[in-house]
């Protein structure tokens, strides 16, 4: 099949503002959008810039705005995208070149929520015990690959770039609901801040955007509930 890629291009070294480039690519319907981007870069226009690595939805490098919705280019198959596909960088972070955005603020937000295991009790010689149901409790949020698709699809984040954002909350949730972790209160305190969990207006864009199928809004809701019960 033949597809046309309409790609929003911007190179701050020479462009005053973004512009649209069009490329015709011959491809299989089962090809990934990433394959089509590679076909452009490798055989048509070496200047096209984007991030990619694993090419099967596990490293989180190639989140971008595809036909108006956030997704990973390596999990979007051409057969589902139509004859003309628009591709833009994720919204809400500074575009550094073409489809690449500045991820530093994204990782800064992630780091704010203490996204690491905290314990104060004595470490056992072997494993800490955890029952299968306790392990299941936070399974969904262990899937996060930090691609940024949720945060950059969130209108609350677009309106207020100080908002810590869904991705960071997902990673806090992963520890808050881990029966072994002892940092729950510290994390809840951080998320209780005005730019924390309360900025979420349950718009559900994040759930739609998540390439890992994480129920992000539910996770945020559970953190909100944990905060409310804590206050009571």
């Amino acid at each position, binding site marked *: 099949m033949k597809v046309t890629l309409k790609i929003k291009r911007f*190179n*701050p*070294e*020479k462009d005053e503002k973004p512009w649209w480039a069009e490329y015709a690519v011959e491809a299989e319907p*089962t090809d*990934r959008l990433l394959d089509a981007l590679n076909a452009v*870069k*490798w*055989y048509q*226009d*070496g*200047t096209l*810039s*984007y*991030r*990619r*690595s*694993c*090419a*099967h*939805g*596990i*490293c*989180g*490098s190639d989140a971008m705005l595809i036909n108006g919705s956030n997704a990973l280019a390596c*999990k979007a*198959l051409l057969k589902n995208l139509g004859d003309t596909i628009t591709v833009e960088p994720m919204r809400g972070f500074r575009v*550094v*070149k073409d489809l*690449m955005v500045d*991820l530093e603020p994204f*990782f800064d937000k992630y*780091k704010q929520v*203490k*996204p*690491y*295991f905290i314990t104060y009790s004595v*470490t056992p*010689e*072997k*494993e*800490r*015990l*955890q*029952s*299968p149901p*306790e*392990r299941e409790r*936070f*399974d969904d949020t*262990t*899937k996060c*690959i*930090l691609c940024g698709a949720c945060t950059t699809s969130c209108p609350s984040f677009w309106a207020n770039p100080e908002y810590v954002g869904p991705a960071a909350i997902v990673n806090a949730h*992963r*520890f808050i609901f*881990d029966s*072994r*972790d002892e940092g729950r209160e510290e994390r809840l305190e951080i998320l209780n801040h005005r730019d924390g969990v309360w900025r979420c207006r349950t718009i559900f864009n994040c759930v739609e955007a998540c390439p890992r*199928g994480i129920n992000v809004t539910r996770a945020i809701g559970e953190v909100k509930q944990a905060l409310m019960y804590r206050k009571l």
Partner: protein
Amino acid sequence: MLQRYDAVIVGAGGAGLMAALNLSAQARVAVISKLYPVRSHTGAAQGGIGAALGNLEEDHWEWHMFYTIKGGDYLADQDAVEILCREAIETVYELEHWGLPFSRTPDGKIALRPFGGHTREFGKAPVRRSCYAADRTGHMILQTLYQQCIKNEVHFYDEFHVLDLLIESGRTAGVVAISLATGELYTFHAKAVIFATGGCGRIYRVSSNALALTGDGMAVALRRGVPLEDMEFFQFHPTGIYKLGILLSEAARGEGGILRNRAGERFMERYAPTLLDLAPRDMVSRAIYREVEEGRGVGGKDYVHLDLTHLGREVLDQKLPDITDFVRTYMGIEPAKDLIPIQPTAHYAMGGIPTDNDGRVVMDEKNTPLAGFYAAGECACVSVHGANRLGTNSLVDILVFGRRGARHAAKFVRENDWALLPANPDERAQQLVAERKNAQGNERQGDVRDLLRNEMMAKASVFRDAGRLAQMRETLKEVRARYNGIKLEDRSVRYNTELLELIELGGMIDIAETLVEGALARQESRGAHSREDFPKRNDAQWLKHTLAYQTPQGIQLKYKPVTITKFEPKERKY
């Protein structure tokens, strides 16, 4: 730009982060990585990490050791394998203590599953030795290590691409890297350098490896006179998604999946009567190639089926959710009722930068270390995997030897001062970049890369012979000549990904040369190196490691002995 650290770690996958965690409390450390650390390919490992915890049935590290050595067709250094299997156990507990969310047994312990080539009591039956977190064990390891690095305030240089290793008067003096964001060259003056740059699977057309796995660290070391060890041993994983090469974990067969040919026959019964579908990867990949060659591929094509239909939707969704998702996404089929088309996919380099058991890079057949230079993980060759790696052992390797390298490096930086920095330390890196920027010609990068990858697949993959390997040697000359005629289109300074891809391709050509020369010379079949013109293993002549050096006259080969401690080489049957 000049930076100075006690130690610089290149690469932020499992080995690099493990090294960083073990070194950062004692020394000033920087980690430079061409990707954001959480993008590293450790995150793609699915099935589990091998350790004889014995949570579900009797198990011993000695059994793990024996099957690692047997799985590697007796080429592994047995003292190193002993360290690997002993320290695997404490390593898994350490990960758990850092919060890694392992799947659990009903009584709350770390869950274990069977895996290819892992057996009990000298081959009687498969054993549950693979500790797992659903089928995203590598993802959880990478996340957990990165989380701990944040906690310990490790200093990262993200999206920095290594270009050169600095050596001065026989000592390591640092590295030179280019910043993707600014295009500037950074010289990192360091007492110790640890390479943890991962594999090079992208030298083949069909590969499970990330696009980033281009062997950068191996190539940088090779160009500075460091040999590469056992590069002819490259593992093809039996179950890659047809055409795409995306990995479907051995865990699928660990949970009961069966390989079937066009007639629906469970053909592994003919190749490995005891272990069947859980035979080691080299044997299963060869069996698939044979089935296809003899006309038993599905529809007469070059693939067979992985059958998971009998496992039921619940097992698939709970124990193998990611690979179930891959099959649904990329094949558009439902593994609970459809057979999955699979073919072997280039997966893992057993070879790499030679090291001793403390991660120190060694330069020759006498194991002479290059002071201050360390390597760990897939880019290194200790050798614990010998001629063929067992599933789950790469995750053990990156952690055990990432840590050992870091511990030795910690001592080294305490006891030593910085080596003098060479005059104009970034001269070579500047030259490398300038050559690519100034090259003139009509070649397209994509075409040259395709030529390399397609021909490596056709002539130097699962089955090899002198004729095809000699042709590949000639093809590589053509690839190199055409490489020099690639004109860089992207002239920008910042975020020039085309330039970096071109530099990566140059490294892959160097690496492919070492692989082909090693394979041509080795006139025997052992593990993943299968010569149709020399179908038998030949211990009398070839029980030895290859060391490939890059010289102005081409690749030169030397050999060093294999360390045998507990297990005398025997015929390898399953």
